[in-house]
């Protein structure tokens, strides 16, 4: 990583946040030309909620990529797993949803750890290449997803609680209580992760491993254990993302797969490897998606997010907050 690039990055960061906000504000303003300010505000709020869920689901993918270099195409299945596990606890076992969510998070952590321990660590030991690993993750995704279909069946189902709610009205904008909870939970989890990575000793070890695994080993850090932690965290957060996603969208066997590309778009746009990037990218994707429904047919709303993804990869693969060295 060149000196010049880092200095430029540091100086550009505050500028970049401003540019991002400005861009989104402009977009909202432009959209207002097609719709009333209330509609724009509503779309922005809905988009922010969706964006935070995407960020929550994808930050694990981002960290896994940063520490191991693997792009995990099976990440969507952690999301589905969390939602299904919570559903089982909530509907079959009768636990309150909050408790079911906690179980889902723990289950997600366990799933992440198992996958790393049982599949990725042995593959790394055997020197399996990047392309082969991606293909393995695709196979794993198809396998687990259809196991979910196998046991959960095809129809969508809801949790027992919070299905129908009275919306609050604020200046013409509607907000369901569960949506507010979703946003708060996502923000809290992401903030906690950010603080963990920045302040705690283990979190710094994670960042060190992402920077340079060999030097981390030279500092006494057992990088294998760090990677295991990252996978557990990734699984846990994605599972939580699945639970809040299902609050709005219901639980279905392929819910994770359906948002996978958007999740990838969010974390890539924001910059792989940073929590800040996941939040920024997720928010942009969410808001752009919702705002587009104001002037384009709603069935095309995801297309704009995907176009943004393709554009980012072609012109600036490190995303907004990512570092040039990580890429290519």
């Amino acid at each position, binding site marked *: 990583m060149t000196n010049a690039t880092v200095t430029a990055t540091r100086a550009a960061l505050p500028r970049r946040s401003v540019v991002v906000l400005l861009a989104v504000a402009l977009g909202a303003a432009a959209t207002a030309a097609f719709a009333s300010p209330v509609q724009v505000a509503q779309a922005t709020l809905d988009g922010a909620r969706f964006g935070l869920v995407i960020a929550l689901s994808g930050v694990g993918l981002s960290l896994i990529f940063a520490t191991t270099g693997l792009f995990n195409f099976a990440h969507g299945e952690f999301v589905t797993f969390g939602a299904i596990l919570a559903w089982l606890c909530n509907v079959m076992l009768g636990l309150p949803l909050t408790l079911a969510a906690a179980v889902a998070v723990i289950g997600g952590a366990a799933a992440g750890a198992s996958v790393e321990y049982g599949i990725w660590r042995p593959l790394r030991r055997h020197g399996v290449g990047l392309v082969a690993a991606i293909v393995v993750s695709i196979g794993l995704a198809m396998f687990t997803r259809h196991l979910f279909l196998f046991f959960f069946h095809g129809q969508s189902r809801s949790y027992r609680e919070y299905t129908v709610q009275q919306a609050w009205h604020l200046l013409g904008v509607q907000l369901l209580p569960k949506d507010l909870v979703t946003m708060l939970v996502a923000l809290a989890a992401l903030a906690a992760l950010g603080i963990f990575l920045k302040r705690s000793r283990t979190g710094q070890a994670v960042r060190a491993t992402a920077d340079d695994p060999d030097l981390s080993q030279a500092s*006494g850090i057992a990088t294998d254990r760090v990677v295991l932690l990252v996978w557990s965290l990734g699984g846990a957060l994605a599972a939580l993302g699945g639970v809040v996603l299902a609050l709005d969208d219901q639980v279905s066997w392929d819910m994770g797969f359906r948002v996978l590309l958007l999740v990838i778009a969010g974390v890539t746009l924001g910059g792989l490897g940073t929590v800040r990037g996941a939040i920024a990218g997720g928010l942009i994707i969410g808001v752009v998606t919702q705002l587009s429904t104001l002037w384009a047919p709603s069935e095309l709303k995801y297309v704009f997010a995907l176009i943004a993804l393709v554009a980012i990869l072609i012109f600036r693969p490190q995303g907004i907050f990512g570092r040039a060295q990580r890429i290519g």
Partner: protein
Amino acid sequence: MSGVTTAEPVVALALSGVRRSFGGVRAVDVGQMHIPDGKLTALIGPNGAGKTTLFNIVTGFERADAGRWSFYGRDITGMDSWRVARAGLVRTFQLTRVLAEMTVLDNLRLAAAGQRGERLSLALWPAAWRKQERANQERAEALLERFRLADKRHHPAAQLSGGQRRLLEVARALMTQPRMLLLDEPLAGVNPALREDVMAHLVALRDDGLTILFIEHDMDAVMGISDHVICLATGTPIAAGTPAQVAATPAVIDAYLGVSTSAPSGARTAAPSGAPAAAASRASTQVATRPQAPAGGPDGDPVLSADGLVSGYNSDRPILQGVSAHVGPGEIVAIIGANGAGKSTLLKAVAGAIPATAGTVRLGQRDVTKLAMHQRVALGLGYVPQSRNVFPSLTVEENLRMGIYLRPREWQRSRDRVLAMFPALRDRLATPAGALSGGQRQSLALARALMPVPTVLLLDEPSAGLSPVAQEEAFEHVCAAAQSGVSVLIVEQNARQCLAISHRGYVLEQGRVALTGTGADLLADPRVVELYLGSTHQRPPENRADRLAPPLHS
């Protein structure tokens, strides 16, 4: 080419104002450089002098920050690498690259230029390219004969030995019918028997009219066969001329061995008489002094010992061929040697970054050969790699925290102690390490490793890429560390300054220990200079023609 002298020598490759920096460090800074046509020119210089970077820039594999360069008068600045090759300027790579899955013959057939069959529009029309293919095949077979690889023609290239691969690379480059060849260390990894052959081939190619520029560390080759030599140090040419002229230039000797820390010693008796005055003035700069010999003396149990280490990056081609060395308590031990001798590899094997195929590594009494690096660190080993030795996106303070990762409770005490040693870091605690200058990074790298007070510290070229002042500082820090009880095993290109502060040293050559002794003895030993620069008198040019197969009729 007969002996017709032209009024002005033709310039094959001309560079002007070419500059390239990495991370605040100037890698290449060439004001003017001319490579003459029809000659064998050697490009020499210590590790990190920018030779390969220069190759990469000129052939389009890397970009330059500034400057222009031209090939036989044609401006090729910024040209794509494949176009440069097509223009006739062909390069080989420092680490041998063969297409392992293809046969030897196919490797050569691929290289032929201007193949009609390579165009998609004609590929399915064999009639259009069959004749050309056959002609290429004949040329390839002839080259295989010339380089004595003919019996391997249908074998996958992966089955060739290291030296044969090198020959294949040269043959492949010749298939392109270049106007000029850039060879990056053509003799590296080639066993002595084959070396003479390769050198003879290069001479023959020059005689056939090919212009060759080659990077080499093998000084016998450089002095023996080149017509013209250019020496590069920290990215800038510091000497150019005939081999004898360059070998006798004091600046060249200094570039390889480092600035002298004393009056002219026996090591420089071959220098022309103008040197002593210059050397004396250089000796007056502030230098680090060797710390007191450890109280325990050399009889104390070694804190680190390596016995018969065999190791490398590839298990069937080890770089270390059975190295034994040890470090006593409180000692500073130097590992020096020419490029490719295995110095960094030794440190990596001792640290655990690469596995050892044979031999043992001991920390004190404990055998750590089977342990991973982080486990060795937990037992008191410290390691500072040569490059990538700080965490760029972590702040200075966080870097230090990582140094004391295993004993977080000692954070405050260690932090204060280390910051007292490196006061310059105090003002920059919140700066990301990637934003620091080269010298500051080196200090931080050392500071990080010193946080847990390791029993033995492994340092890989701590002075590399630093300004002279920063180099002095680095060596002072090493002395200070040793004085506080840390034993140090230091690999250095800067042999003189390093030996000046070391209690003992080992000189590596081709993966083995060639010389060992106290720091002072090695500093005065003329054999050390020879190992770096070859013998300082020029060998009479041998007639090597009889070693060759019948010449190629092109």
